[in-house]
């Protein structure tokens, strides 16, 4: 019922995202249909090329969707254009392959009769081969269409909009209703297209011609529209992960606190750094201990109004697990306040830029603290340690595992890389994992979700936050927080260092002033 209410409350935005979603999918499909059929036809006339080209087109389909979007950024930047290109590449294989095989499968006797009666190659194609291959070609278009409605949700990660915005935001914000608000329309859209295309398929011989003509007209309109729409405005652009944009302690509050006027787009956290480096965006929202800050020559803008809440990292454990293995508390006390911001940033840098294994980095750090690291058990696991899907969480999970195996008799299994806080908390509650590295601020805002007045009274003081979260987690969820590790990985605004220095921007207040000066 909550889902329905949420959807009704957000009907406007759902409608807007659905239109964006449709638009991206449709444009990509139109281009893929026209070029795919053309390419398929050409391949039937140059059969030697068919194996390598169909192979090449097939490779695009084997590249994981998100990786394909990642490859797009250095070349095409972020936004709608790379999203359309990625979807186009996805749609190409079924269309090219079906066109090619459809034409080759036309009965050779029919082709011979047509040629023997005096048809030119073009007449053969137009009057015989394409009409007879149409059902197979159309099946390819239908497959590609339905796949692409699904893949288009990922386009939200490179600032192209669409129904994926709700889905990823919902995962990040631990909000099931929001996930459904994106997933339900996306699924309905896929079903709708499948149904409509199935209806068209029944009368495909009659309908294919108007459809292709319609596609060609739309294609021209798109080109006109894109050229016209690409005139850009002179505003600073910011790219934030969806979690950051829509969190009260993220951009929403930040905007109020500093009176910031930024054009924001949603970007996947993993793709964000590439985007700022390529000047696709000017500002990104990152974390203070991120190793890529150094690697990409970015500058952390000082939070001079102390807006961002404290995010002290600590292991969060299931109550049941801790009661069964009380020795865990002692184990993690060994790490209490042992890691500084700089040390954590350095470890992240080792993994992100020097491409070292998180496990090796974690082991080296523990060794440098004079802790034991040599035990590495295999076999039946006593506890499972999880992590989120970013570098720091991977390193910490590995560190926890080494520590537990060296300072207790427990054997650890690792279940790493859950995307988003919600999935980790669900896994912890369900007993799929026993503990994972979490942050006090995240626990406060996504797990406990206290009323605003309580929040205001806590947010400035890191110890108050930790103790409040620890107490409420135990009472409400039977989760235990062990000793904080010492560093504070809070949100930060990052800019290209060069750009920031050039315009004398050191703090977020400076940024706000600079933007105002641009608009005057």
């Amino acid at each position, binding site marked *: 019922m909550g889902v329905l209410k949420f959807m009704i409350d957000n009907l406007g935005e759902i409608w807007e995202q659905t239109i964006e979603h449709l638009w991206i999918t449709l444009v990509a499909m139109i281009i893929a249909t026209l070029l795919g059929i053309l390419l398929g036809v050409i391949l039937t006339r140059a059969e030697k090329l068919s194996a390598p080209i169909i192979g090449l087109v097939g490779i695009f389909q084997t590249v994981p969707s998100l990786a394909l979007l990642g490859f797009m950024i250095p070349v095409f930047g972020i936004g709608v254009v790379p999203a359309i290109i990625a979807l186009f590449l996805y749609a190409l294989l079924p269309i090219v392959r079906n066109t090619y095989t459809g034409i080759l499968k036309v009965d050779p*006797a029919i082709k011979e009769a047509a040629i023997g009666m005096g048809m030119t190659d073009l007449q053969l194609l137009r009057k015989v081969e394409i009409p007879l291959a149409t059902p197979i070609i159309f099946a390819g278009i239908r497959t590609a269409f339905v796949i692409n409605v699904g893949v288009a949700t990922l386009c939200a990660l490179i600032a192209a909009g669409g129904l994926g915005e709700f889905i990823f935001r919902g995962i990040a914000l631990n909000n099931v209703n929001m996930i459904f608000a994106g997933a339900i329309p996306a699924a309905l859209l896929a079903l709708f297209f499948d149904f409509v295309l199935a209806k068209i398929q029944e009368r495909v011989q009659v309908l294919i011609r108007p459809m292709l003509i319609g596609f060609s007209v739309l294609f021209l309109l798109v080109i006109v529209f894109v050229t016209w729409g690409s005139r850009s405005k002179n505003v600073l652009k910011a790219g934030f992960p969806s979690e950051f944009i829509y969190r009260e302690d993220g951009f929403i509050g930040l905007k109020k606190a500093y009176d910031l006027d930024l054009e924001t787009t949603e970007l996947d956290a993993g793709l964000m750094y590439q985007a700022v480096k390529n000047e696709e965006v000017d500002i990104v929202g990152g974390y203070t201990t991120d190793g890529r800050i150094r690697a990409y020559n970015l500058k952390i803008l000082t939070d001079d109004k102390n807006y961002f809440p404290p995010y002290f990292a600590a292991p969060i454990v299931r109550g049941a697990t801790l009661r069964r293995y009380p020795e865990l508390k002692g184990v993690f006390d060994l790490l209490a306040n042992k890691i500084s911001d700089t040390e954590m940033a350095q470890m992240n840098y080792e993994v992100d830029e020097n491409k070292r294994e998180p496990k090796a980095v974690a082991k080296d750090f523990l060794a440098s603290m004079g802790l034991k690291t040599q035990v590495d058990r295999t076999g039946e696991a006593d506890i499972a340690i999880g992590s989120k899907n970013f570098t720091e969480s991977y390193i910490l999970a590995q560190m926890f595992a080494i520590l537990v195996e060296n300072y207790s008799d427990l054997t650890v299994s690792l279940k790493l890389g859950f995307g988003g806080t919600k999935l980790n908390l669900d896994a912890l509650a369900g007993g799929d994992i026993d503990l994972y590295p979490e942050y006090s601020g995240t626990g406060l805002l996504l797990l406990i979700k206290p009323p605003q007045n309580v929040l205001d009274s806590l947010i400035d003081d890191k110890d108050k936050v930790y103790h409040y979260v620890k107490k409420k987690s135990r009472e409400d969820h039977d989760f235990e927080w062990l000793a904080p590790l010492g560093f504070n990985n809070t949100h930060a605004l990052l800019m290209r260092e060069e750009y920031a220095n050039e315009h004398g921007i050191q703090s977020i207040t400076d940024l706000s002033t600079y933007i105002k000066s641009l608009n005057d």
Partner: protein
Amino acid sequence: MIAVHEISKVYNDKNVVDHVSFEVKKGETLVLLGTSGSGKTTTLKMLNRLVPPTAGSIHIDGEDIMAEPPEKLRLRIGYVIQNIGLFPHYTVAENIATVPVLLNWEDNRISERIASLLQLMGLPQEMAERYPSELSGGQKQRVGLARALAADPPIVLLDEPFGALDPITRRQIQTEFKELETLLDKTMVLVTHDIFEAIELGDRICLMHEGKIQQIGTPLALIFEPANEFVWDYFKTQRFQLEMKVLTLKDLLPEIEPFDSGLGEKIIFNEETSFLDTMERLEANKNDAFQIAIFNEKRQNMHFTRKDKLWVAFNKVKEKLINKAN
């Protein structure tokens, strides 16, 4: 009309067609006969350039067929293939209209032509709007032939045109085909492996084996004057029937002893009827006493005789031909 000079086709170092030469006169039907792999179909397909010759030349009405684009050549040559190859997405009418449409005929002219061809082929007019999948094998064959004849081409090439039909339908369509008036003045080249079809339809037969012509001549010449041992062997197993098939009543007339009782019913035969067909028809009557009347095209020169006298004449003529060959 068609002059083929020393054409060869080499596939993978193998001479599929090996220095083949022949001529087809205007209005004549030449049958390319042979087993599979004899090169007969390849030879046919070189005539409309579906297969490019490795060597040699082909002239139609004195002009080298390589002198113009193949599509233009093919528009003037009717083509019928074994599997018929009707376009499944076209109606019967659209199938028949294929070449006229390629030639940009006016709509009126096309629909008139379709109607007259359907009538000619003995197909009901309402069949025009049906699709090939709704037709029987024999009907498809007729539509295929109508399609090949649509633009009234002077030359028609037929590749095993009746090969896909069951024996009874095939026999019936062969007879109809032979009697089609539109085909009388057409120059035709027909490929078959069916010896009886070759004799039935061919003015001359070109017997091929391993890419080479073994003998080219009238059916009578091939049976009674075989050029070599291959030709003799090729017809050996069905020799007796074939001898009956190649001789017409006209061939037997000089030796037929007249008999006219002046009474009773007579069975009437055209003098062009083969001796085999005559005997088959008489067999059906079971009455040896029936009188037989033989006449020519114009119903002149009636000859009256009896079944037993026909046999005598057949044996005499056959003996003479064999002696002559030796």
